[in-house]
């Protein structure tokens, strides 16, 4: 009682358990939080980066269109001026109108995706483009006769100059754009660096908490293990003591039986035999005619005879003298005869090779195991035939008891008799085995090592 109580209090710490649950739960939440945060941040960065790139691309594309428009309009205008007939001039004129429209749309597109830093150059560009269009308008409005001479001159003088200015402006905007892009990349990198730092800190925190938890758990486990081992040792010791005690009890009981049996046989039995004889001697000296005395003496003899029989049976039941006088096999044969006589069960003892001189403990063990087994056979198994075999096997002595009774479930049933037999056998370092199933009879096999 006190043992289990002290051990129980050591092992059970309710505070520790809730702390553990809280710790592990917290750790799990922390890990989830870190993971969630990281995912969210990455998504954000990815989105803003994509948006920025999108705007940049749109701007770059529209600027490219503007540049192309400017070039093409100059070329188309020259073709228009050089056109030999009004028909092809009209075609070139239409072409120019289209290009102008496309370029204006590209300008609008570019304006919608403009970076604040580009406002000034873009406004200049817009102004230049307007001037450029006006210049070209002016060319188209020239009278057809002058158009060849003035137009070509104008084109090479004014238009090319403006065109160069515009293209320079476009290039500047492009340059600013590239710088902005680089700045965006730098910002992105900085964001990433910050994110990484934050993540690292969070992971470090998680690891620290995990480590603390691990240390706590480890200590707790070690303590539990220690307590468990203490308890196990305690149980093993108690078990050993119990086995020892039971072995001592068994041997004390055996010794007692032997002593009582011998005492009964040697003292009481012999004295009664002597009494019987003395009664006979007395009877021989009774004078003729004293019939009453003779009757008394006869009665004494009868009583003594009955008592001798009782004593004989008692001594044999306590411990058969053959076991000590002739050894195991005669004692087993006697037992077989007695059991057959008493129960009607056929018991056959076989000892193919006479076992070597057995130590007293082994003899007694086997004898008692067989006694108990035969008892079970007749009492529980309702067996008709029993076969007892004793034979030496190497450094061992082997015993088997087989019956044709009703059997039992050997895995479940462990009657007190079986436990007692097992205890006896284990005490001598032997093995004990019972094979049985309902309806198949029972086979009991033991092996006892012989001490060299």
């Amino acid at each position: 009682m006190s043992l289990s109580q002290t051990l129980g209090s050591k092992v059970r710490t309710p505070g520790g358990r809730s702390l553990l649950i809280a710790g592990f739960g917290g750790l799990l939440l922390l890990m989830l939080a870190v993971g969630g945060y990281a995912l969210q941040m990455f998504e954000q960065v990815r989105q803003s980066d994509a948006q920025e790139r999108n705007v940049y691309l749109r701007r770059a594309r529209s600027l490219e269109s503007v540049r192309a428009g400017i070039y093409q309009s100059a070329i188309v205008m020259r073709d228009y001026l050089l056109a030999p007939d009004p028909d092809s001039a009209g075609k070139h004129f239409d072409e120019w109108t289209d290009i102008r429209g496309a370029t204006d749309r590209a300008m609008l597109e570019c304006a919608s995706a403009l970076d604040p830093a580009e406002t000034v150059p873009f406004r200049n560009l817009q102004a230049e483009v307007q001037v450029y269009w006006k210049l070209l308008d002016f060319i188209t409005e020239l009278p057809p006769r002058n158009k060849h001479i003035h137009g070509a001159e104008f084109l090479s003088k004014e238009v090319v100059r403006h065109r160069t200015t515009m293209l320079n402006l476009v290039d500047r905007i492009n340059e600013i754009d590239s710088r902005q892009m680089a700045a965006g990349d730098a910002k992105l990198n900085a964001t990433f660096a910050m994110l990484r730092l934050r993540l690292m800190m969070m992971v470090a925190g998680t690891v620290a908490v995990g480590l603390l938890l691990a240390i706590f758990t480890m200590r707790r486990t070690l303590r539990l293990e220690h307590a468990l081992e203490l308890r196990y040792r305690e149980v093993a010791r108690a078990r050993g003591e119990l086995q020892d005690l039971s072995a001592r009890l068994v041997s004390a009981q055996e010794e007692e039986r032997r002593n009582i049996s011998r005492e009964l046989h040697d003292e009481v039995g012999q004295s009664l035999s002597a009494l019987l004889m003395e009664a006979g001697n007395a009877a021989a000296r009774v004078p003729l005619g004293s019939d009453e005395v003779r009757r008394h003496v006869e009665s004494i003899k009868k009583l003594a005879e009955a008592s001798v029989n009782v004593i004989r049976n008692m001594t044999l039941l306590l411990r058969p003298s053959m076991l000590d006088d002739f050894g195991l096999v005669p004692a087993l044969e006697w037992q077989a005869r007695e059991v057959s006589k008493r129960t009607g069960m056929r018991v056959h003892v076989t000892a193919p090779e006479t076992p070597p001189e057995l130590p007293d403990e082994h003899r007694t063990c086997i004898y008692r195991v067989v006694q108990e087994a035969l008892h079970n056979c007749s009492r529980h198994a309702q067996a008709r035939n029993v076969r007892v075999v004793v034979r030496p096997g190497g450094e061992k002595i082997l015993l088997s008891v087989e019956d044709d009774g009703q059997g039992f479930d050997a895995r479940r049933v462990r009657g007190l008799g079986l436990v007692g037999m097992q205890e006896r056998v284990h005490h001598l370092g032997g093995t004990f085995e019972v094979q049985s199933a309902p309806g198949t009879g029972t086979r009991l096999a033991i092996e006892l090592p012989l001490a060299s």
Partner: protein
Amino acid sequence: MAPLQTSPSTSIRVLLADDHTVMRNGLRLLLERQGDLTVMGEAADGRQAVDMAAAGNPDVVVMDIAMPQLNGVEATRQIVNRNPNTAIVILSMHSDESYVIRSLKAGARAYLLKDSAEADLISAIHAIIEGKSFFSPGVRRLLKEDYMRELADMGAEDTYELLTTREREVLQLVAEGKSNKEVANLLNLSLYTVETHRTHILQKLNLHSVPELILYAVRKGIIS
């Protein structure tokens, strides 16, 4: 112990071996009531019995089995080995056949239970002096009962039925302790024929020695 006593040459000289003084005294009284018996000595254990038998050559030894130093069966073996003419009566508390057969194999020719000593010891001594065997009625009854039950249990056929009339005669005479020569004389047969009969009997009954044959005869109730 009591010194060896001289006695008339006609009287049967008996050695008592029992570790109980009361028992020995009772036996001495019982035997000495008879005119033809003399107790030549008393031994208190098996070793002493062997020594005294060697020194005094008694005609009969009345031997207890449970004795210190050397048990009665071993003492019997040693005494008979040294002097086959010494007849041994076992006087024991034990009625089990393991004791009977071991005593017979050791060379004893009579087996009495102690509670029948007063009634049967004198007859037993006279029987074995004549070369016969002798068993207490109690022992005879037990052996016979066991045998009958065994026969019934095993459902075996009674091997006695296998013997011819002549063989049964030989069996009884041998079991009673007669030598082959005596049997030959009694039945008017040649020594060789008697030996052949003996061999056949042992084979048919699955026995291996004369003591076993005697035990068998007792169990069957052939001899008393």
